[in-house]
């Protein structure tokens, strides 16, 4: 195990290298670019023996990965924001074809208006594509999760693609110490891909195909079952990772000081770090608050959320994206999971940190205060500057 100082982007690149990917296809987009630059270096110097396809768009990047993966190659790509939106069609193909591609996502806001900063709208918009979705809090978690994602995705019972998302700039361009596992350990953890479900180049079969109402439902149900299998299998994969590499990934919803909490905040990505330190500060002041990190958004950890609900605490869900006409994307899932809970806890949807706006300790304090002291509206845009009702076109464009 070597400790290196790595950005989140490089953590992705080194994870792909350790996974011994066969094929990389990627198109540059800020702030993902250094992932694919580093991979290009690794391939050119011979440190990674992979085919690197220089594609002309993200759509083609994912198509190339899906086609390569269909033949049994281990394929990796990375993108962000608009690039992920352009890939949307292929995201469905990847899960439908059961190709276990792994993709790094630098979570960035989507246009219009332009913003290159952190926001989760890009990957949240891909919620229903059949991809397994992880959100990382640190660069260490980025590296570990990419490796675990390959293992989970490629399991014969799963064969679904995974995206490992990380916050733009806070992770992609911030360096921190990362323990890089030994290649031999990764090789033990992540064996070569099984050929199950792949296209045999010497056998006349058709992959993709054309279906009638006689078969289509069963194909969709197979993806649903595989997603369920992924949730069931994930703990085993993480145990294996802990046993071989020595790090605990914490499951889909790691909890922090939740057992006696009156208020719990559910966070994703780097906002978790800020929230954790705020929990410590509030605890020191005698406030019983806790935190749960939503590490895996798909398959959604409904059971774990229900267990969280049984603490009796009020629950706030902090989303860096919004599902227009409803609430934060993670909040709607948490609410749905808790609908049948008895007693049903109070849940609030907090939307903040869009387009790179800082989620500060003061903001997190205000969210806990909101949960502890107020009933308040169900959906709160917690860091809005223009008061509601005054967001005129003039104010926005002036």
């Amino acid at each position: 195990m070597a400790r290196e100082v790595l950005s989140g982007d490089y953590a992705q690149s080194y994870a792909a290298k350790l996974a011994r990917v066969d094929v990389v296809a990627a198109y540059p987009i800020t702030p993902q670019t250094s992932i694919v630059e580093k991979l290009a270096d690794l391939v050119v110097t011979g440190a990674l023996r992979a085919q690197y396809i220089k594609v002309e768009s993200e759509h083609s990047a994912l198509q190339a990965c899906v086609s390569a993966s269909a033949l049994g190659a281990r394929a990796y790509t990375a993108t962000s924001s608009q690039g992920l939106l352009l890939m949307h069609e292929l995201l469905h193909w990847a899960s439908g074809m059961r190709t276990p591609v792994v993709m790094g996502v630098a979570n960035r806001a989507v246009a219009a208006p332009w913003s290159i900063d952190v926001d989760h709208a890009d990957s949240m918009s891909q919620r229903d594509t059949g991809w397994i979705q992880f959100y990382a809090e640190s660069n260490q978690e980025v590296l570990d999760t990419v490796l675990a994602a390959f293992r989970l995705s490629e399991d014969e019972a799963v064969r679904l693609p995974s995206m490992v998302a990380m916050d733009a700039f806070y992770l992609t361009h911030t360096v921190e110490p990362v323990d890089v596992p030994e290649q031999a350990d990764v090789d033990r953890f992540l064996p070569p891909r099984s050929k199950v479900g792949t296209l045999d180049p010497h056998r006349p079969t058709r992959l993709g195909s054309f279906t009638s109402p006689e078969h289509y439902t069963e194909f969709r149900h197979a993806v649903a079952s595989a997603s369920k299998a992924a949730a069931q299998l994930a703990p085993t994969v993480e145990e294996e990772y802990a046993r071989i590499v020595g790090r605990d990934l914490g499951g889909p919803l790691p909890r922090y000081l939740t057992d006696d909490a009156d208020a719990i905040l559910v966070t994703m990505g780097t906002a978790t770090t800020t929230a954790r330190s705020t929990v410590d500060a509030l605890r020191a002041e005698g406030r019983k608050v806790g935190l749960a990190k939503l590490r895996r958004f798909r398959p959604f950890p409904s059971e774990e959320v229900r267990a969280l609900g049984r603490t009796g605490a009020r629950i706030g869900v902090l989303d860096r994206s919004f599902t227009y006409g409803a609430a934060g994307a993670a909040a709607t899932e948490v609410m749905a999971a808790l609908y049948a809970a008895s007693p049903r806890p109070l849940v609030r949807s907090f939307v903040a940190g869009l387009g790179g706006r800082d989620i500060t300790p003061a903001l997190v304090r205000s969210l806990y205060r909101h949960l502890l002291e107020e009933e308040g509206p169900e959906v709160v845009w917690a860091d809005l500057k223009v008061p509601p009702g005054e967001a005129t076109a003039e104010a926005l464009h002036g």
Partner: protein
Amino acid sequence: MAKLTIPAEELLRSGHSACPGCGAALAMRYVLKALGPETIVTVPASCWTVIGTPYPTTALDVPMLDNPIEATGASVSGLRAALDALGQKGLTVVGFAGDGGTVDIGLQSLSGMLERGTDAIYVMYDNEAYMNTGIQRSGSTPSLAWTTTTPVGGASRGKLEPKKDIMAIVAAHHPVYAATGNIAFPEDLIKKVAKAKALSGPRFFHVLAPCPPGWRYDAERTIEVGRLATDTHLFPLYEVENDRYRITRRIERPKPVADYLRLQGRFDHLRVEEVASLQEAVEARYRRLLALESASA
């Protein structure tokens, strides 16, 4: 007696779901005859999505991968990369796409594949409209043709714009090999595909594939219509090898374009002067081809 040069082996099985007289089915049949069984085909949304027969059957005796309509060029790059990475040698990767999936929505990924030098063959079977969805005009529909989105009536005379010159677009990428082919001249087509198979790098085919329901002629006349396309100079057979143009079927006394047009209901509405304008356009294009041939000789 002349020796037949068409390989006997069939890699397209009977029982496929093409319409009677389908040129696209013949295009696949001849291309696979030339390439043999060590071939992988990737097919976008097109008539061939259906011709290939639905799940759980397949009409081909080679593996076939489906891909979305605009991504054939990327799919061939992915397949090639996987074979190379996995050390699978001796296989030919073929993208087999329609005209809309190539000259319109698929142009970007085709360009990408040609530019990045993917070692694969891309075949565009050209039935000159979006036939699978019901005869809507594509960039490859010829001028004045009737389609369901270029109806004839009132002031409308069918498609206003000329056919997109995909061979010129492809040639501008300087691929190792590009050629036209016509299902009515299988020996010429098979010879070219076999030649291309022996080369490496990006290779492109523009294959004319007449379509009885879309072009509005009787199914038994597909070969006749196809032959006339070439014998009128409207669809000349040629190849571009390392930027050198060579016409592979030379017709000294071409037939009038009217002979080709009058067989097809999609041109039924043409007036004498419109036929004359198409004749002029065909002659002008053929002169440019001759000039390219002599300039690159």
